[in-house]
Structure formats: C-alpha cells, structure tokens
C-alpha cells in the first residue's frame, strides 16, 4: 500500500518546553509521594546539616547583642549612663556601644589631665539614678567571704528591662533587700531570713535578675538609705559609681564626645540606636584600636571550619540524593526513550531536586533556628546573660540553604547526565548506567590540588618567614586566608579525584577476599553511587580532623600558657601567718598553725580531700624591712627577720630570647617553657623533701637514680633551662634590693649568696611554680633553715563555691583569723577535652549515614548478583560480608583522605601563626576516626544486613 506521507519534521514544537516541564513537575511530585520513606530519608539527610549550620550561625549571632538589646539590658528605660572612662588624656573617643572602651586615642599620657567626676557632667533637667558597686563580706563559719553589693533603686520604673523581680516582693522597709538567686543558693538563705553582711543585717524579700549579669553571681541589692553612713566600700575604682539619667531629651553624640574629653564615658540610648558614622570614631593622627592578632587567627580558624562545614552540607546533600539516583536513572532513560529531550530530562531532576531540596533546606533552616531559639530561651531562663536574644544569621542561613539546594540539584543532575550521554540501553536494562570515565574531573581535580598545595605551601612559607612576633601578627590575616583557601580547595580537589582514586585503589584486588574484592569492584563500577558517599565521609573527616587539631592545639596552648599554682585541684595553705606591725612599728610575731589541726579541719569540711601533706621550704621572707638595722645595709637575715629569697640562676645563654619590646621571640623555645620559665621566685619555689614530696608536688614519680642523686646532695630541678653541664646555681636574693637584669633589662633582686649544686632534671606533670627540691640534709648543709611552711591539699575534684565557703570557714576556725582564702588550682578548662570526642562522634554519625546509604544501594543493585551467588552455592552470610566490605571501603577511604585533608592544613595553620608553640596532633581521636569508625560502620552494616540471599532473579526497576 502506497500513501503520500508528510516529510519528517524534527524542528522543536511550540509549547513543548512548557508541557515537558509540566510532566517533569508531575513526575517529581508523584515520585516523592510514592516513595515516602526514601523521600523522608533524603529530606532528613539534607535537613540535618543545614539545621546544624543554621543553629550554629544563629547561636553565634545570638551571643552578640543588637543595639536594642544593649539599650534594654544596660539602660532599661533611662536615656544614658555616665561613668568614668579609663583614658590617659582628653583626646580619646569611646566606642558608641560600650562606655568602657576607647576606640581611638593618641595614647599619650597627659600628666596634667584630671578626669572629671561623672556626677559633675550630668546634663541638667534630667532625673538621676545612681548605681554604686559595693564590696561586701559575710561570715561563713569563722571566715569572711566576699560578695557583690549594688546600691541602686533596682525596681524603679526607669530600670524596667534591665532589672526584673523574679520571686518575692519589693522591699518595704530599711531592713528588707533584694538578692540574686546565686546569693541565696550560695549562702543557703531563704527569702524572709536574715542575712548579715559587712554593711549590716538585711532580710532578702525578693530575688532579682540583672539582664546584664548571670543569676549565679552572688549580689545583694541595697537602696541608698540602707548603706550605713561612712561605710567603706573597699578600694573602689573610678568606675564603681555610674549615673543613669532619665528625661525626654536624648543624649547626643556631641555630648558623648564632650564627656569623653573630660574622662567620662556615656552609654546613650539614642547614640546606640543611631550610632555615628565610622569616620567620627577616629581622631586625626590617632591610631584606631587594632584587631589583635589572636582575633585574626580565631577568625581564620572559624573561616576554615565554617567553609568546610558548608562544603559538608553540600556533599551530604549530594550523598543523600544518591539514594534516589539508581531509581531515577532508569526512569529518566524511559523518559528519554519516549522522546524526552535533554532539557526535559534535566527539568525532571531539577523539579525533583527543587521539591525535595527546597523542602529539606527550608525545614533544616527552620529547625536550626528553632533549636537555637530553644537554646537561647533556656539559657536566659536559667539566668545566664551569655546569649542576648534569638538572632538568626540571614547570610549564613541563606548560604547553607543555597549550598544544600545547589547540591541537591547537582546530585540530581548526575543521573540525567548519564542518560544524556546516550547510556540509554544500559540504563534501561538495569537502572545502572556505565561508570563514567571521569577524566575531566580527574584533570580538574589534579589542577585544583596543585593550586591548593601551592596556597598551603605559600601560606606556611609566609607564616614561617617572620621571626619577629610583631611582623607575624601583621601577616596573620594573609597567612590565614591562604591556608583556609588552600584547605577548602584541597577538599574540593580530593572530592573531584575520588572517582579516580576509587578506580586506582580497586584495580589490584585479585588478592583480596571474595567479599572485599566484590565490594571494591562494585564501588569502582558504580562511581556515581560511591563518589558522593566517599566525598561526604571525606568532608566530614576533613572537618573533624581539622577541628581536632585546632582545638587540641588551642587546649595545649592554654596548658602551656596556663600559670599553674600547683597540680590540678591542689590547694596550698601557709602554716605561718604574718601579722600587722605593732603600734611601735616593730614586727609582730607570725601566727603559726598546727598542720594536723589544719588538715583535720579541711578534711572535715570537704569530702573530696585525697590527701594532705606538710610542705617544707627554706625559711620564708619574714618581717623584712622591720626593726632596727632593717635597711639595705643591714644583715639580710636576723633571728626575727629574713629577707633572703632563694632562686635558681639561669646560665648565660639559656635565657628566653625576647624582642626589644620584650615579646617572647619563640614560645616554643625550650628556654621559654616549663616550670619557672616566666614566674617570679617565691617563698616556696625551692622545696625540701624526698621521693614522696616529689610525687605530691610534681605529680611525677622519681626514679631510683634521681632519688639517689637527691640523697647524695644534688638538687632535682624541674626545668633544664636552669641546668648546665649537670649543675645548677642556687642563689639567695636580697628582696630589699632592685637592679636591672644584665640579660634583658628587667628589674631583679641582687644575688647575695651563690651555691653550685649537682643537678638532675625531672620535669613535673605540669609547669608547677617550683625550681626544684633538695633533701633535708642538703638544705641543712646549705643553711637554708628548712621549716614546715605550708599544707598541700590534694582534692579529687574542683570544689564548688559553697564548698570553698565551708572550707574557708573551717580554716579560719583553726587559724584564728579570717581572710585566709582557700583556692584550689582549677587547671585548664576541661570543656574542650571531651569536645574532641564529640567531634569524632559527629564525624562517625555522618560516616555511618553515608556508608549506610551506599551499602543499601549496593545491596539493592546487586540483588540479581546475589541470586547468582545463591545459585552457585554461596552461604547466606556472604551478603553480610558484602555489606560490611562495602561500608568498610566507603568509610575507610573517605576517612583516610579526610584525615589527611584536614590534618595537614590545620597543622600548617597552627605552625604558621602564634599558636605554633602549642601544636598538638590528637593521634588517639584521629586514629579512632580513621580506624575505629570505619570498622564500627562495617560491623554495623554486618549486623543490620539480613543473612539471606535472594533465590530469584526478579527484574529490577519499576
């Protein structure tokens, strides 16, 4: 049959694009509805990192006060606050937002400048509400302990927003007062009970919150008439009294400047809400307040962590979308076979990405803000002033949302690209398109890696080139930017190279066990599924390892720079208390304390005492400068006085190198570290004792050789900087004298005695302030007049404020006088020690998620292969082994690459900035992340995979 046929027309039809997009949206919407579980998983995986990022950004912004909060929390309804401004001259400009901070000053000390009393500068026509800080004390047992007092009409309506009555009522008479919650808890006082202080006896009738301070502070709020006339509030500073003014007229910036010129700072409501332009904050010719280098380094650290976290959001979203990729490859191939053009295919996945991604990032941002709001609410509820209010960070939130959405769409486009590359037949048959060669991404990845390496090397070289700390601080911003950029690019490069690495690593698998071999080859053949998962683990491991190194180094830095008064949780109480001079000017005899009674009192007051030990030292400085012939010309020691302080001399050339401005050139230098590296000598810098004392005071066990040397007359020295050729020089310093040090110009005491001793070095557990220890026999031989000087008390934990009050009272009962404070060395902050493990745990969660996704997909893909395996007699357990191997490969490869990508830049950042002295790589958490986490993920995959091989070759798809 022959019929006339119209010619074949292949031009684009009108309206095709619109109707194609309609189909795309319909398909995407139905696909989500038909696979709710999978869609929920994808939404959840994208949502969580976006929520985390949004919450972090919101919490950070919430820690910064808005102008409205500054006004509400600090001024209430008043117009302004006038307070003394710490300034050396009249040419200074304060921060408009902070009346205690000078932003611009010539810095020259004007000897003729006399600051005006703020009271004299109050503008006329305003009401005035003074607020005066008081230093009060109260007795706990026999001890007097300090507490804060504030003399203010706190419930005046003008202070609404600043002060708030939490419980109870307003004071009704001269005896009734308000108090903070912290005060009532600390001193175990109920509302309505009497409370005696150095300013009188009062009855707290209400608890009050200062929006500008924590509820935990111990503060008593008095009114003006309640402070007795002539009450000495203590050594008040110029800032102790501030004046709040009320009135209809705002206090202008011009008035603030005038007040500044007279040494008065003003926090003005109108100025805070409408600050002057930046040009008005700098004096002509004056240097503006610079940004400290420490701040720059902190920002750089945040920049690296933030950039990597954002990258992580994108990569996790990409991995999440891989969940649907296999399914989508086949569906897109069907669409293409039905005549869909490439733009239509892309619009289907774009629609899917937009539906799911849009929902996920919106939910993530909302959840992040909600979580942050909850945290802020809770923090304010419990009375902390640390977070001012809920301040979402629009920029960071938008970036996180865009990253998530872009990643969704990019990840969703991957199957579309496979189909568009004419992999139609394979896609139609199995839902799997052949693995892409990935040559382009490998080349781009290699190029990016080169650039990243160059940036990291250049940043490190620039940071290391400057020896002068001043120059280093100036370069910190540029160095940090280079290293941060290099770190982020390195991760991008490794992500791009992951496909090539996977193929390269799996090309030699013949020797592997069957399960591992099959898993490795499956990963290589299905790179569109493997790469997002490995990349997500990689990014998580990068972020975690960088955070581990940076936080660990910061902690080490704090440890290095921490000034240890003793071992952690160790307190020291003197056994001899100097007394005020007698009326005739002669020295009063010191009060001595029985160590047994003191120990019993402390142990009775605290249940955390591990042990107490009497500490023996050379005779302490006592009654120096009193009595006849007490001047510099007199004897350095008499029967009733001692002006001799013992210290070790630094051998020539072993001083800590400093710049002309006396900045330490290299804090990592061995001469600048360790015990007594920067401390001044004290009465207990030299200890007298034996092995037990070394263990108790140094926190280390001395070896037999050390004890033998000690017994033979040598000194056990804590720092090698004081030892040369096995000898150390013990000097007796006359504390009445002062002279410049020949080495660095600092003021030191004159050495009047010198003894060279044999020395053995035993560095203590931490840099405790002891030069070393000599045996009692040696001390006697050297004439050090050893005596029981104090009681060391080792606690098992840090005491609470109430416990400190209790033990202070108990000690005062033994000593017979108040004012002897009990202070246990708290050590470095502990928070960050467990932070490392939290970081590892978060990284592990991400790793398990990504490995779980890819393992699940691999199992689904391999159903027919498993049926084949079952057919040839494979044990059902093989399926478990395959899942475990898949998880191990994905998480192991990602973790190793990520650990390298995170650790190297972080080490370089620490090594190139002022943090370098404290470089510490936390090997244990890193090892856990690289080894334990993948193995655990593998074990979980084993545990959660059913031990059943399918017996039928059911067609895939659908």
């Amino acid at each position, binding site marked *: *049959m*022959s*019929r006339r*046929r119209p*010619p*074949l*027309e*292949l*031009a*684009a*039809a*009108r*309206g*095709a*694009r*619109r*109707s*194609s997009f*309609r*189909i795309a949206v*319909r*398909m995407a919407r*139905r*696909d989500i509805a*038909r696979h709710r579980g999978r869609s929920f998983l994808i939404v959840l995986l994208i949502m969580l990192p976006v929520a985390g990022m949004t919450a972090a950004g919101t919490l950070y912004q919430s820690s910064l006060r808005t102008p409205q909060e500054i006004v509400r929390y600090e001024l209430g309804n008043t117009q302004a606050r006038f307070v003394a401004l710490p300034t050396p001259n009249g040419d200074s400009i304060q921060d408009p937002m902070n009346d205690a901070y000078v932003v611009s000053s010539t810095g020259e000390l004007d000897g003729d400048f006399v600051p005006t009393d703020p009271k004299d500068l109050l503008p006329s026509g305003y009401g005035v509400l003074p607020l005066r800080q008081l230093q009060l004390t109260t007795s706990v047992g026999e001890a007097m302990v300090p507490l804060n007092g504030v003399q203010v009409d706190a419930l005046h309506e003008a202070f609404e927003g600043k002060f708030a009555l939490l419980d109870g009522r307003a004071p009704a008479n001269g005896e009734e007062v308000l108090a903070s919650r912290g005060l009532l808890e600390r001193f175990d006082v109920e509302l309505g009970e009497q409370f005696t202080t150095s300013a009188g006896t009062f009855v707290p009738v209400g608890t009050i919150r200062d929006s500008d301070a924590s509820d935990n502070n111990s503060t008593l709020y008095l009114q003006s008439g309640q402070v007795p006339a002539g009450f000495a509030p203590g050594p008040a500073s110029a800032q102790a009294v501030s004046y709040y003014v009320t009135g209809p007229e705002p206090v202008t910036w011009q008035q603030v400047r005038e007040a500044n010129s007279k040494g008065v700072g003003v926090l003005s409501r109108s100025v805070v809400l409408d600050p002057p332009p930046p040009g008005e904050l700098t004096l002509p010719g004056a240097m503006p307040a610079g940004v400290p280098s420490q701040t720059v380094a902190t920002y750089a650290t945040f920049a690296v962590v933030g950039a990597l976290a954002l990258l992580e959001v994108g990569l996790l979203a990409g991995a999440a979308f891989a969940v649907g990729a296999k399914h989508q490859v086949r*569906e897109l191939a*069907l*669409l*293409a*076979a*039905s*005549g*869909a*053009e*490439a*733009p*239509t295919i892309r619009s289907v996945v774009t629609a899917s990405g937009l539906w799911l991604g849009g929902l996920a990032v919106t939910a993530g941002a909302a959840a992040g803000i909600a979580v942050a709001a909850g945290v802020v609410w809770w923090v304010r509820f419990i009375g902390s002033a640390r977070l001012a209010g809920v301040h979402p960070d629009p920029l960071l939130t938008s970036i996180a949302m865009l990253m998530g959405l872009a990643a969704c769409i990019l990840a969703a486009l991957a199957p579309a690209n496979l189909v*568009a590359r*004419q992999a*139609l*037949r394979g896609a*139609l048959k199995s839902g799997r398109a052949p693995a892409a060669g990935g040559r382009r991404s490998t080349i781009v990845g290699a190029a990016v890696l080169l650039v990243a390496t160059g940036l990291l090397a250049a940043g490190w070289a620039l940071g290391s080139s400057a020896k002068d700390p001043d120059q280093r601080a100036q370069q910190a911003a540029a160095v940090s930017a280079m290293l941060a950029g290099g770190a982020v690019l390195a991760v991008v490069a490794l992500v791009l190279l992951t496909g090539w690495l996977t193929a390269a690593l799996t090309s030699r698998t013949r020797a592997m066990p069957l399960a591992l071999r099959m898993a490795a080859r499956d990963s290589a053949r299905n790179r569109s599924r493997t790469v997002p998962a490995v990349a997500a683990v990689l990014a998580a491991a990068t972020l975690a390892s960088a955070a581990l190194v940076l936080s660990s180094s910061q902690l080490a830095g704090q440890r290095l720079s921490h000034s240890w008064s003793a071992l952690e949780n160790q307190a020291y109480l003197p056994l001899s208390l100097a007394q005020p001079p007698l009326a005739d000017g002669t020295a009063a005899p010191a009060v001595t304390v029985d160590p047994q009674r003191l120990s019993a009192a402390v142990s009775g007051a605290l249940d955390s005492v591990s042990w107490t030990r009497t500490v023996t030292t050379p005779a302490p400085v006592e009654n120096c400068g009193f009595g006849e012939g007490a001047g510099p010309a007199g004897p350095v020691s008499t029967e009733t006085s001692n002006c001799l302080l013992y210290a070790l001399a630094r051998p020539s050339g072993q001083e800590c190198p400093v710049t002309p401005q006396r900045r330490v050139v290299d804090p990592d230098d061995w001469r600048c570290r360790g015990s007594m590296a920067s401390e001044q000598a004290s009465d207990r810098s030299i200890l007298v004792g034996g092995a037990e004392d070394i263990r108790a005071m140094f926190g280390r066990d001395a070896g037999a050789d050390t004890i033998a040397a000690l017994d033979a007359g040598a000194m056990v020295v804590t720092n090698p900087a004081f030892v040369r050729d096995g000898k150390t020089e013990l000097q007796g310093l006359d504390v009445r004298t002062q002279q410049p040090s020949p080495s660095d110009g600092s003021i030191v005491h004159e050495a009047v005695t010198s003894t060279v001793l044999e020395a053995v070095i035993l560095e203590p557990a931490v840099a405790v302030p002891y030069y070393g220890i000599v045996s009692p026999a040696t001390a006697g031989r050297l004439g050090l007049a050893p005596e029981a000087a104090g009681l060391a008390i080792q606690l098992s934990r840090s005491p609470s404020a109430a416990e400190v009050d209790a033990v202070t009272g108990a000690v005062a009962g033994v000593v017979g006088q108040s004012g002897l404070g009990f202070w246990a060395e708290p050590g470095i902050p502990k928070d960050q020690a467990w932070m490392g493990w939290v970081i590892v745990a978060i990284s592990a969660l991400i790793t398990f998620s990504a490995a779980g996704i890819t393992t699940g997909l691999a199992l689904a893909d391999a159903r027919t292969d498993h049926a084949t395996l079952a057919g040839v007699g494979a044990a059902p357990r093989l399926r478990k082994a395959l899942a475990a191997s898949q998880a191990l490969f994905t998480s192991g490869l990602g973790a190793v690459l990520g650990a390298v990508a995170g650790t190297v830049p972080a080490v370089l950042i620490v090594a190139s900035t002022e943090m370098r002295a404290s470089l510490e790589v936390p090997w244990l958490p890193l090892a856990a992340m690289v080894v334990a986490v993948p193995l655990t993920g593998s074990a979980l995959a084993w545990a959660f995979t059913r031990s059943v091989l399918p017996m039928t070759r059911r*067609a895939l*798809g*659908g």
Partner: protein
Amino acid sequence: MSVRGPQQVLELARVSRTFGEGATAVAALRDVDLTIAAGEFVAVMGPSGSGKSSLLALAGGLDRPTSGGVFVESTPLAGLGLNELARLRRRAVGYVFQDFNLVPTLTAAENVALPLELDGAAARKAGRQALDALRQVGIPELADRFMDQMSGGQQQRVAIARAIVGQRRLILADEPTGALDSTTGHGVMEVLRSRADSGSAVMLVTHEARHAAWADRVVFLRDGRIVDQAAAMHDPTFLLTQAGL
C-alpha cells in the same frame, strides 16, 4: 546495496556496532544492510547474542552505530543532535520494550500521552489521543491506573499503545510478547499487524516463529550478520532450519 526511496521508512546501510575496546571488544553487528518500507512488517529472528536488540536500538536512535548509517524516512540519524533524536523518537518512532518500561509515576493514559505531551500537545488533547490508543489495544478502562496496579499483559498493551499513539511511521518491538500468555500475545501481534496495514513500518524482534509468521518478511541474524531473509510463511521454522539456526 539498498536504494533509498520515498517508500523506505528505515534503512540501515553497512551498520556495525562494537562494544568495548581492544582485546575485550565485542562486535554486536557487522556490516548490516536492511531496509523496511512503509506498510511492511519485518520480523528479526536469531539466537541470543546475535545482535537483534542492538539492531533495534540503532534503528530507534537509542544507540549510535560504530560505523555505517541509519536512516529514518531518509533522514540520517548520524546528523541529528540529541534533541533532534529525541524528537524523532517521540514523533516518528514507537518503541515497545520486552519488559514494558512504563514510567511508574505516570498513569496508563499519561504514559501513552507522554510522547505527545513532550511534543507540546495540550494535556487534554493528548489525553484524548491516548484514550483512543488504549481503546485500540482493548484496555480503555485502565487509563487511570498506575503500572503497579496492572498485570504484565495489561502493561504491555499500554506500552504498545504508547508506541502507536500519534503519527508513528516506524514501530520497533523488542520481543513484546516475551512475558505474555499466548492469548495476550496473539492480541499484541494483531495490533502490530494492523499498524503495518495502515501504513507504518514495523520491525519485530522475536524468538518465536509463530509470531514471526505475522510478518511480511523475516530477517535472520547470526553473530551480528544477516544470514538470510525471506517472505514469512505460516510456519517459518523451516527457514530457521535452512539457515542452520
């Protein structure tokens, strides 16, 4: 050497298709010449791995030959871009897959209307044509069902309806009765025969001689080459025997 004429709907000229490279290269088709005229029903037979499905994929523009030329209505597919190939598939070529290949997120009617809608037809108009096509294959009542609500036979009828909807000049069917019972398979063959009789060129890949018997011509493939072709008889099995297949 075939002659390209106005009646020829499909022409494959010295077409070869090789998968893989080097030592692992496999030649699926070698120098195949084949033409199908309008109104002609051609069955392709051959053992597994002989290249039948590859031949069909090249004819439908789902794959590209390693060498040689594929022409549909005298238009060389090699000169078409990806988008033009897509338009060719939705306007001129109907493809019936062995395992149905319906889009699971679309109803039966939407699956059938898919090529029309992709080509810009209004949804209502495309829907009407889809219903007509479904009526031709005898299942208009299943228009609103999704594929997981239909049997295999019903799904295959929907796939055939999708292949014949609109003005299709070439219908390619890859063992469309492979998953069907004999009665349903017979119905499918009737539809394909009917399309050929109304002027479309039909190429059917099949293993079964009783289905090949519906064709005007049977082409036999072995090792990627056409080893014989003949007019179909009521029982073409003797040809298989003659060709040594």
